[in-house]
């Protein structure tokens, strides 16, 4: 990314004598911020402030949900500023256009983009601040700034003896102008980037002092719970208000858009009052389907409509004519819940005609729209305070929980914390969509000449644009929100980026095949869906890499070698594939009673190959080993990369072994961790992660560990049992 420094960095002096740097990333600040220059106080769009007492404040524009931005982004600033990352105090960003994710033009954290989009700008900001501090010192000493250097928060005099603390220099440094020719440090001089380092939030998270959304405490705070309809889309017809109002501690009971809200002085009293609540639902517009009907409707849609062509190379139809052998398979994947360990919650205070929200959110600017939408207030009247997130995985990109809490707070006019129970969190989630894949491949002799992949299912922006479109135009009047949402959908792929959520990973099919035909049949059964760790890659990975495995077996080839042969000209794919195979001793026989499976999948710019060793013990699938090779370009913190990849593997295995949300007559059948299981400690396989040393630009690691492990496990079970499983979750007795 080529950035003109003067265009995106601004320098200013705090009245208390500090150096403040603001950034505006390309495409982020096409509008005024709406903030006035405050005096002496933290200015909302400031990214970096060095005070005269040597405190360094860094605004963290990407939220911390476990993926490591708190440490990783701080490391980028620290490296160039020449301070220890531990010396920097990160704080979560308020809502401002400067803090938008330049890829989405929204202030959201997702898509494994935090490091890749911050890599250049944050290092540049750190280097610019360092340069201004050096120039200030050079002016004091009357020496050439080129002869000075910086280290550990000080500028060093050319004489090798004298030095000045940054705090002593900030007032003067703030008067320097930003230079256009500050060189970033060469990799050979990095002290922190690429090194094994701990997490800056580990202490707070090991002592119980990290503040998550659910931990926010306000004076006079009350608690709310909401009863939502068992069938999505049902409306409240009637409820026994007086019975519930009479329960101890109950302050109010009333209908909100999503159901019936109860407010009580204590959380447990609100829950007990909820037991007494009886709601009669109007199910006219409610979901009434069952899961098997979803797949039947997908098959019908797929039969009737071959779908939009999303990638076409050569002439697939023609290759089919020529093919001597044609293989076909159909794959399906269920709805999946996010199951963040911290359930959905938000705390909201409505007073003085403004609303303040404290929430664990991946999209604070969408939260602002959500709060404005259900009140008479404008987005500019809404302040969002982001906390640590107890897991995100895409769930907290949607702001339904903020919307509910804002509606309750607006009526009750007291600080109120709304908490979802685990059952509510599981049953009123927006799910990873159920999907159907139809695959076809043609061979001429042993040569794969044609590849066809038809994806059937919904697109996620259909569900997301409602709040996202207004968030891009926060000054727009609220009566326009629905129109903005509709226009946003119509403009998708034309004026706004194309919705890749159904097809990502399928259209980047990496194998050298002359005739490729990838299609998407867009159909939506009305089940609420959203982004889920690794999004479209999560289901396309299973379809593509299982079918590749089937083709290898059908043609009598080794699944590793079969892939290898088709990867000429794809060196990074090949490298991770070879490394994973080597790590797993692919060429040696596997132990009796075990099978080995391999899969390779690139997602979010990161190349990942995995080999799973699995078996069946006492009627239960047992995963023994996962060998994984990953190429994510330049590594900022190897330990966090390893953690994220391993976490992705656990997340993927959870989906492969257990993940399944089912509907019966419009109602979700699962409710808590007994019937929506997560992988437990005793099920953890031996995981080995091999990270490729690379000088390519860094890519994301939060999600790419997930997709390959699912097909790799299925392929391992096939190797063991000879039975192919084409739907998830995998079963021991298939």
């Amino acid at each position, binding site marked *: 990314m080529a950035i003109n420094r003067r265009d995106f960095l601004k320098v200013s002096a705090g009245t208390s004598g500090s150096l403040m740097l603001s950034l505006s990333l390309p495409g982020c600040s096409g509008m005024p911020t709406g903030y006035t220059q405050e005096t002496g106080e933290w200015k909302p769009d400031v990214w970096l402030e060095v005070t005269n007492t040597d405190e360094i404040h860094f605004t963290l524009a990407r939220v911390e949900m476990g993926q490591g931005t708190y440490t990783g982004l701080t490391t980028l600033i620290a490296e160039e500023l020449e301070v220890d990352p531990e010396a920097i105090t990160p704080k979560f960003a308020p809502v401002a256009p400067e803090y938008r994710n330049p890829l989405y033009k929204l202030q959201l954290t997702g898509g494994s983009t935090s490091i890749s989009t911050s890599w250049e700008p944050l290092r540049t900001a750190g280097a610019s601040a360092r340069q201004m501090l050096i120039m200030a010192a050079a002016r004091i000493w009357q020496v050439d700034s080129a002869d000075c250097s910086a280290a550990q928060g000080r500028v060093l005099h050319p004489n090798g003896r004298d030095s000045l603390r940054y705090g002593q220099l900030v007032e003067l440094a703030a008067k320097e102008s930003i230079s256009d020719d500050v060189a970033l440090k060469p990799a050979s001089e990095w002290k922190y980037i690429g090194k094994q380092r701990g*997490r800056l939030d580990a202490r707070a998270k090991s002592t119980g002092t990290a503040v998550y959304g659910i931990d926010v405490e306000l004076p006079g705070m009350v608690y709310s719970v909401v009863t939502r309809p068992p069938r999505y889309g049902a409306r409240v017809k009637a409820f026994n208000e007086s019975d519930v109002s009479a329960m101890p501690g109950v302050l109010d009971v009333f209908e909100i858009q999503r159901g019936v809200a109860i407010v009580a002085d204590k959380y447990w009293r609100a829950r007990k009052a909820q037991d007494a609540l009886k709601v009669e639902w109007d199910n006219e517009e409610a979901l009434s389907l069952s899961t098997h009907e979803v797949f039947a409707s997908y098959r019908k849609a797929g039969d009737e409509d071959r779908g939009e062509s999303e990638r076409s190379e050569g002439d697939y139809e023609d290759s089919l004519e020529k093919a001597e052998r044609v293989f076909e398979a159909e794959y399906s994947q269920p709805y999946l819940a996010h199951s963040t360990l911290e359930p959905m919650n938000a705390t909201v205070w409505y007073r003085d005609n403004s609303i303040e929200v404290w929430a664990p959110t991946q999209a604070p600017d969408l939260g602002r729209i959500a709060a404005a939408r259900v009140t008479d207030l404008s987005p500019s009247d809404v302040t969002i305070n982001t906390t640590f997130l107890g897991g995100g995985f895409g769930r907290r990109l949607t702001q339904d929980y903020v919307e509910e809490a804002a509606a309750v707070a607006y009526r009750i006019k007291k600080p109120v914390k709304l908490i979802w129970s685990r059952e509510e969190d599981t049953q009123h989630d927006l799910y990873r969509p159920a999907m159907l894949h139809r695959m076809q491949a043609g061979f001429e002799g042993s040569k794969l000449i044609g590849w066809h992949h038809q994806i059937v299912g919904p697109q996620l922006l259909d569900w997301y644009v409602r709040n996202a479109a207004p968030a891009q135009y926060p000054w727009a009047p609220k009566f326009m929100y629905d129109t903005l949402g509709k226009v946003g959908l119509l403009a998708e792929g034309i004026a706004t980026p194309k919705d890749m959520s159904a097809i990502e990973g399928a259209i980047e099919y990496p194998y050298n095949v002359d005739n490729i035909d990838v299609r998407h049949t867009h159909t939506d059964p009305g089940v609420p869906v959203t982004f889920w760790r690794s999004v479209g890659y999560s289901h396309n990975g299973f379809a593509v890499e299982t079918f590749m495995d089937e083709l290898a077996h059908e043609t009598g080839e080794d699944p590793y070698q079969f892939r290898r042969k088709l990867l000429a000209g794809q060196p990074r794919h090949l490298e991770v594939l070879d490394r994973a195979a080597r790590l797993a001793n692919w060429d040696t026989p596997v132990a009796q009673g075990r099978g080995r499976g391999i899969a390779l999948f690139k997602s979010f710019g990161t190349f990942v190959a995995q080999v799973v060793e699995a078996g069946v013990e006492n009627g239960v699938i047992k995963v023994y080993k996962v060998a994984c090779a990953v190429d994510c370009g330049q590594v900022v913190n190897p330990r966090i990369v390893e953690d994220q990849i391993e976490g992705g593997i656990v997340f993927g295995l959870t989906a492969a072994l257990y993940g399944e949300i089912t509907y019966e007559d419009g109602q979700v059948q699962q409710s808590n961790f007994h019937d929506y299981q997560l992988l437990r400690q005793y099920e953890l396989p031996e995981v080995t992660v091999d990270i490729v040393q690379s000088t390519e630009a860094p890519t994301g690691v939060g999600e790419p560990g997930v997709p390959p492990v699912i097909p790799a496990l299925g392929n391992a079970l096939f190797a063991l049992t000879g039975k192919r499983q084409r739907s998830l979750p995998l079963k021991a007795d298939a």
Partner: protein
Amino acid sequence: MALSLTVNGEQRSLDIEGDTPLLWVLRDELGLKGTKFGCGAGLCGACTVHLNGQPVRSCSTPVEFAVGGEVTTIEGLAEDGQLHALQKAWIAKGVPQCGYCQSGQIMSAAHLLATNPAPTRNDIVAAMTGNLCRCGTYSRIIAAVESVAGGPLAYDASAAGEER
């Protein structure tokens, strides 16, 4: 009902319905937010605290069961300003990702080491299997517990500082 219990060594008295889960008493009445709500059904372990030296799921332990008892939470694990050896290991090994489950994980591990100072790998896995981690920090948890096992534990006052 009026009741009292000892929390992190301090006697606390309050007036609350006896069926209120200990979790909400700790969090909302006593301001100890380090103990987390995860499932409300004793399935995830995020709310694990020690009651009279035993690990309990505070989300499904009515406070009346804890009357007169001694409760230790994550906030009470440090002694004399010194973090528990497990907390130090958690930081050194970089265990937490989102961190939400880690108070519960540490409390389960602390009980294991208090009763079995030199556990085997199997002992650790068995003791930690009731604690879910959605981020998948499981291998780091094992590494952190193993790094402490056999060493001194700040939590057991009588054993603090002793080499084992």
